[in-house]
């Protein structure tokens, strides 16, 4: 084993790591070129270049997946490929998550191309090639099975994100947000590390599979320590995914960050860490599962599974409640979306937290529901951020009021926003609805009824929040006349207080091609995902096996 650990990278492995390597090369090339080119030369092409890099990376991931899928239906499933002494692995879990991450990044870059102005961000080249290491960190994160690799990936993602938030360095809010982010983020990293150190201490290894096996053997001895370390880990990761009560940074940071970066944080960063958490949790769960045997309630492992599930679901429930209720009175759109991200982190935590190893349930489709919700969430949120970028640019403030009368100014944008809003609220017929439905199915199938009810009730409360956009877009005028004045004015009219005065503002809203494409693509995807999920979900289900792809038995 130890000899394997120091096994160098083989030539053939290069191909397997093509997605990551593409990004690495692109970053290096771009930074060098950016450094060498004279100042006066326009850097906008760098955006296109980084987009290309991400798309190439995405292409290789999809190509690998297609390959593996064809293998799977032909009957010879391609197994997990372990690299670098088992610390890095190419499996279907990682690949599927990478699709979401890369797709999300690509869309974020497209928003940026339409959104970022020279006046705003002086170093546009830097901006674009900082996005790549960030997503690269995400890719490493979801593929690693060793605490060290994992931590490196996490920090790559985090540090790049800190920088991205601070990219508007002349902006007071941007730097303030970045400072908050880095202080709290580093503290969270310290928590994660502290938790990891105990895991290592109990097992003497940093390989996830070996940790799981060792814990299955001797968890009973170190139970308080194990719980403590798990708690430290959960606090740290909870911070990274902005789950309540570790969410407080996210509204401030999102508000400070440029809109595309906020989108990146809420989708790519959150998705990658969630995926990692998924893997981590299932390692521990599976470890006990294999030690105890099917439905064996006597072992300590079964209890640990239950407790872990309880903790995760509590965080999930709290996130939903806090995220939703805090958003009720929120008038700043970015903060609102940040809080929506808190609630959605809660929803995404549910498939992780469901205790599928209790004998009462045979349900084990956690990953496919998780993945479906993640991609639905990615499209919806990025679409919403794209529109936010367009609208706030036009109205030059970021309050909910900036959406007022959008229907008159840009009807199609309003329609697209309606789709995203419906999806966020979980109303048919959108991907958001089906995502929640599938998660809920799992919750009910594993008899976590209390969670199902909390989930549904919070999503109903969120109706009020999200329909606030609709109220603004369709029921308000874009002039500054506030709602109360309108209502008052109309209550005096007895006879026909119906309807509105019609389109008043003639402010044209400029929609760049790239942003428009993101909006259109996201909106269509949200609908398509909802109506035709069969193919995609069959793929996921055929490819993925919880036991093989997530659990890294050494």
């Amino acid at each position, binding site marked *: 084993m130890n000899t394997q650990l120091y096994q160098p990278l083989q030539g053939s492995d290069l191909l397997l790591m093509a997605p990551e390597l593409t990004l690495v090369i692109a970053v290096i090339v771009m930074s060098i070129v950016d450094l060498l080119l004279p100042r006066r030369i326009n850097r906008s092409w760098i955006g296109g270049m980084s987009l290309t890099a991400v798309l190439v990376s995405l292409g290789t991931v999809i190509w690998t997946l297609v390959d593996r899928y064809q293998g799977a239906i032909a009957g010879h499933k391609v197994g997990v490929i372990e690299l670098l002494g088992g610390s890095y692995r190419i499996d279907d879990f990682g690949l599927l998550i990478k699709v979401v991450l890369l797709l999300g990044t690509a869309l974020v870059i497209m928003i940026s191309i339409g959104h970022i102005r020279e006046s705003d961000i002086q170093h546009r080249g830097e901006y674009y090639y900082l996005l790549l290491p960030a997503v690269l960190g995400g890719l490493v994160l979801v593929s690693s099975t060793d605490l060290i690799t994992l931590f490196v990936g996490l920090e790559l993602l985090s540090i790049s994100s800190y920088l991205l938030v601070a990219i508007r360095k002349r902006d007071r809010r941007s730097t303030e947000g970045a*400072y*908050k982010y880095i*202080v*709290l983020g580093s*503290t*969270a990293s310290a928590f994660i590390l502290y938790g990891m150190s105990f895991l290592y201490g109990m097992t003497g290894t940093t390989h996830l599979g070996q940790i799981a096996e060792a814990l299955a053997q001797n968890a009973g001895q170190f*139970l*308080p320590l194990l*719980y403590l370390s798990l*708690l430290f880990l*959960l*606090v740290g990761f*909870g*911070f990274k995914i902005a789950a*309540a*009560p*570790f969410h*407080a*940074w996210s*509204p*401030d940071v999102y508000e400070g960050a440029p809109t595309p970066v906020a989108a990146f944080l809420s989708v790519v960063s959150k998705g990658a860490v969630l995926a990692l958490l998924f893997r981590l949790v299932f390692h521990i769960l599976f470890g006990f599962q294999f030690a105890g045997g099917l439905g064996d309630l006597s072992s*300590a492992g079964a*209890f*640990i599974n*239950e*407790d872990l599930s*309880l*903790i995760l679901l*509590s*965080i999930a429930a709290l996130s939903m*409640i*806090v995220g*939703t*209720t*805090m*958003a*009720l*009175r*929120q008038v700043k759109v970015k903060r609102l979306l940040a809080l929506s991200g808190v609630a959605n982190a809660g929803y995404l935590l549910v498939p992780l937290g469901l205790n599928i190893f209790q004998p009462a349930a045979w349900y084990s489709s956690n990953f496919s529901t998780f993945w479906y919700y993640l991609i639905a969430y990615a499209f919806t949120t990025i679409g919403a951020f794209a529109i936010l970028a367009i609208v706030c640019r036009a109205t030059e403030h970021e309050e909910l009021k900036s959406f007022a009368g959008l229907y008159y100014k840009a009807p199609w944008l309003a329609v697209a926003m309606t789709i995203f809003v419906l999806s966020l609220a979980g109303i048919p017929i959108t991907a958001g609805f089906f995502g929640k439905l599938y998660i809920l199915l799992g919750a009910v199938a594993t008899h976590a009824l209390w969670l199902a009810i909390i989930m549904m009730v919070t999503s109903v*409360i969120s109706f009020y929040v999200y329909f606030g956009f609709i109220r603004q877009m369709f029921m308000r005028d874009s002039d500054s006349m506030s709602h109360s004045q309108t209502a008052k004015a109309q209550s005096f009219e007895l006879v026909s207080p119906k309807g509105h005065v019609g389109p008043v503002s003639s402010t044209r809203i400029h929609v760049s091609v790239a942003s428009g494409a993101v909006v259109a693509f996201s909106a269509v995807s949200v609908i398509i995902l909802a109506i035709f999920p069969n193919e995609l979900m069959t793929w996921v289900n055929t490819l993925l096996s919880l036991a093989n792809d997530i659990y890294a038995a050494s």
Partner: protein
Amino acid sequence: MESVYAQYVWAVPIAPLLAFLVLTLMRCVVKGSAAFIGVGSSLIACVLSILILLERLSASTNVYTVNVEWLSFGAVHFELGYELTNLNALMLVIVTVVSTLVNLYAKGYMADDERQTVFFAYIGLFTFSMLGLVISPNLLQLYIFWELVGVCSFLLIGFWYERPAARAAAKKAFIMTRIGDVGLLIAILILFWHMPNHALDFQSIGQVFASVDTMSQYGISAGLATWIASLIFLGAIGKSGQFPLHTWLPDAMEGPTPISALIHAATMVAAGVYLVARTFDIFQLSQTAMLIVASVGGFTAIFAATIAIAQRDMKRILAYSTVSQLGYMMLALGLGAVTAGIFHLFTHAFFKALLFLGAGSVIHAVHTQNIFQINGRGRSMKITAWTFAIGALALSGVPPLSGFWSKDAILSAAWESNKLLFAIGVVAAFLTAFYMSRLFFIVFTRAKRVHTEGTDSPIHESPAVMTIPLVVLAVLAVVAGFVYTPFYSGFETWITGVAASDHTNVIVIIVSTIVALSGIGLGYFIYGPNGVREDRWSNVIKPLYHLVERKYYVDELYKLFAVYPLKVLGKVLDVFDRYIIDGIVRYTASCTVQFGKLFTRIQNGQLQSYGLLSLYGFSALLLLLLLLGKGLW
């Protein structure tokens, strides 16, 4: 014998229905000839029903029934159809004759009203419903038409809708009768579930309730029969204005007078009596129910008669008289004398319609209903006065007018079974004679003593179109009684189908004659042309007089014990709904918002407090694990 006309019974109600439809749907086209259509259609119905009656008189044919399925699923088989019995045939004639005459009369009475078309349409609808009620072969169909006549009555009471009083009266009529209707409805529910095959037709009811044995054979206990009968009677109480649901009937006089004659005197209000007679089999099996019917009837007879003594409104006096006479009929039924009850219904229909139309004729001329304002001015209307006198005498029970015979039949039945009820009947008869003579003398004979109005325009007799019905009805009021005298009981046999013996009872004849004459005499003594003034005697018994004048405060009691509590309850619930139920909803909503605000407050921009929050979260999770964690325990 083959029935010739019986198979066309369906056409009897159809004629007025067509009139209604034509008048409603083609209002603009037929505007001028509304009265003609009304009279014509009811005349057709009248002729046809007389033919049917004659046919049934000449040969005692069997019950003729036709049914078509109306609604059917599972165990439910509701049928619509018609049934012809002797009782029905008689009722058909009563209804159509009165209806025809009233239509004719209304042509004159309503000549000036611009909503004539509507009026005749309503009458058509009413006649249709009443006829449908009469020929119903089952209880459900009867109930349907029962409600329809109710709504027609409601519409016609409120015909002059601008008057708040008419609005209130219409509403009251509908709601009060509805209370009774619900009783009937519940009776139907009970019957439906306890009758074999869920049958509701009268023939099956007759079979099941033929005797105590058959009843128990079908698993119906005596107690249940009492309940059914009482509930049916509750329906009758509402419709026929029996105590305590009588208050709507006097108020219903806000409607046009022809309507009062047709609906609130002759036909609809008698439907209760008809209903009891029709379901008499059930009543017969329950002593309790019979006693209830008799007591309510007897009490109402005397109760309403006393009220009538002190009223000043001409139509109201007649209305209370109607209530009282309906009580009489109920009394008869309660005593088991179905024939007597029906017979009184028959005679009462004519003379009471006559009285109302006569009153209408006077009112039409003098434009007031207050008898003290009319104050003898009716004397110049000769035909009206004479026909009214005939009606009053018939009602008072002066031999040999029709009222005498029917009242006699009831009193003799009472004499035979219950002396107390007989006494009540006699007192009521005396009071009837008294208040009728009071009414007649004040309106038609009193000398003009006070001129309330400055210029007293001369009073003319009403046009022929109004007086002809009066004359016809007067004739009927005289002769109708000879159908069933103590010396001839063929009518009873014909109605009940059981051979009956004559029931001559000399004592009763003598008593009732004396009572009627003395009542008239007392009335003449007080109110005659040279009578003493009313306040002489009314002052003597002032409290009692007030009590009677205010109708025993029944309306006030209703207001106190039904209307106000309902209103107060409604208001209380409204507050409850607004502040408690909705309050909880709003409170929940605001709690949610407040909960969100709680967290928002932590969002103060200080990164260190964010860190602290996370630390608290960490501790909370630790606590959760310590408390609930299964692994640690």
